[in-house]
């Protein structure tokens, strides 16, 4: 059968995932990812419309706690491990087109 995934699909997914791929990687990944999706065909031919999806094996939902003050991480200790910090916050390169 034809490959379920094209090079363009993989390039688009890489962009969504914030990854840059070389031409060579694009070729390799297209083949490898297609292989996994083809294996998944055993699953896709089944009629499972009567089944509910499972995301938690024991069906836990809406676990809540009392709204009380609880220990939290020390801000300076967290920022000390970040690549860049400024004025008690994480610092990143500019996001908007023009620097203020």
């Amino acid at each position: 059968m034809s490959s379920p995934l094209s090079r363009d699909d993989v390039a688009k997914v890489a962009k969504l995932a914030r990854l840059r791929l070389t031409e060579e990687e694009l070729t390799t990944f297209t083949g490898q990812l297609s292989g996994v999706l083809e294996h998944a065909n055993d699953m896709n031919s089944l009629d499972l419309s009567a089944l509910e999806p499972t995301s938690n094996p024991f069906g836990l939902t809406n676990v809540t706690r009392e709204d009380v003050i609880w220990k939290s991480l020390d801000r300076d200790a967290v920022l000390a491990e970040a690549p860049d910090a400024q004025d008690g916050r994480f610092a990143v390169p500019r996001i908007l087109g023009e620097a203020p």
Partner: protein
Amino acid sequence: MKTAVEIANDVQTGATTAVAQLDAAYVAIEARNAELNVFLHLDKEGARKIAQAIDARVAAGENVGPLAGVPIAIKDNLCQTGIPTTCSSKILEGWKPPYNATVIDRLVAAGAVPVGKTNLDEFAMGSSTENSAFGPTRNPLDPSRVPGGSSGGSAAAVAGDMTSISLGSDTGGSIRQPAAFCGIVGMKPTYGLVSRYGLIAFASSLDQIGPFSKTVMDSAVLLEAIAGHDPLDSTSLPEPSPSLVSHVNDGVAGKRIGLVKELYEGADESVINAVMGAVAALKEAGAQIVELSIPELRLGLSAYYLIAPAEASSNLARFDGVRFGLRVDGEDVTAMMEATRTAGFGAEVKRRIMLGTYALSAGYYDAYYGQALKVRTLTINAFQKAYAQVDMLIGATTPGVAFKFGAKSDPMEMYLNDVFTIPTNLAGDPAVSVSFGKGEENLPIGVQLLGPGRSEASLYAAARVLEIADGRS
């Protein structure tokens, strides 16, 4: 090498000290770490302080705990305050967590001494540790072969007599498969039994922390010490740690055990022979064996390799050069994130992120991710039906013995190594791998025992029967 139970007893009675045990562990580690690449980081100073505190408490007449003075190795995806935690990825190189995983606090409370962080497949994605950014770990039993993965370093630490016990994590077999390849005991507990707080997430609905050890009793002692509800993990089961140690010698008399065709078919002949040998031993010990077929389990691999990457693509979005570890500069924030992730992640992690992103993307969500979640339901229903007939199931842990480096270069071929371990994770149930018999080149074989949620005590009792039958008292 002494077991954890023996070490703890010797430390508590004053026959040895926690410091002496720690020194011995570092001698054993340094003798082979250059060759085997088991540990990525050793915390000698911190460990010494913990050990000294234990010795002071013993001297003061205190009962320190079930793991008094026992050195333990920790998989490097578990956070420990101030200790480098990399997940074997360049993207976290140099990052030091500002908090402890709950399991670290519980280990120390039980008297254990964490000695250092062990190698793994990057972000726990792999079955051989060949995906580590810091080089593969070698199998202590045959250094030309892989130790399994992803918790290969933690398995090798125990198999190589560096520590008597260690912690790993199991998302699709990452404790049981390396336990099988290294000839030791590896337990993947019920989902939610052990808090995941401080375990760097790979696939949150499947990940579970668990123990490695040489003996079944040590596994039970360690699991009992780390299990139980934790308010910091919202998926943590709402009950205290179960009683496991007191059930290890319960035996299997009167138990009904299902021999599942789909959990050994296609495996090497030596592996199938080991499973049949284990079945005979359990029968001899009074269990009733029921042959079963659960065809739904065959679909597990496909469902897993969509669900786990989908969750991973979401979990690993946080590694973007802003809060942790690596940053590669770029002209704007998007360019910085792209450059950081491109340089920081290895090939297998990129593959899974892209697979997951694709499975979750508009137009494909229902066909891939949605269908996989329904297959998960199908798997759970199939297990439940089996557990209405029998108390537990038995099969192989892996299709073969530990393979050579580079033997599985195609990703799909590597993924197929997990075919017997994956269904348990989808169901959230416990399963233990115990070494039983030998295969080619005298390499160990793992037999897998699976049970319904919260059945760890029964699984340990059956594993203990196999341990004795295989000649380990």
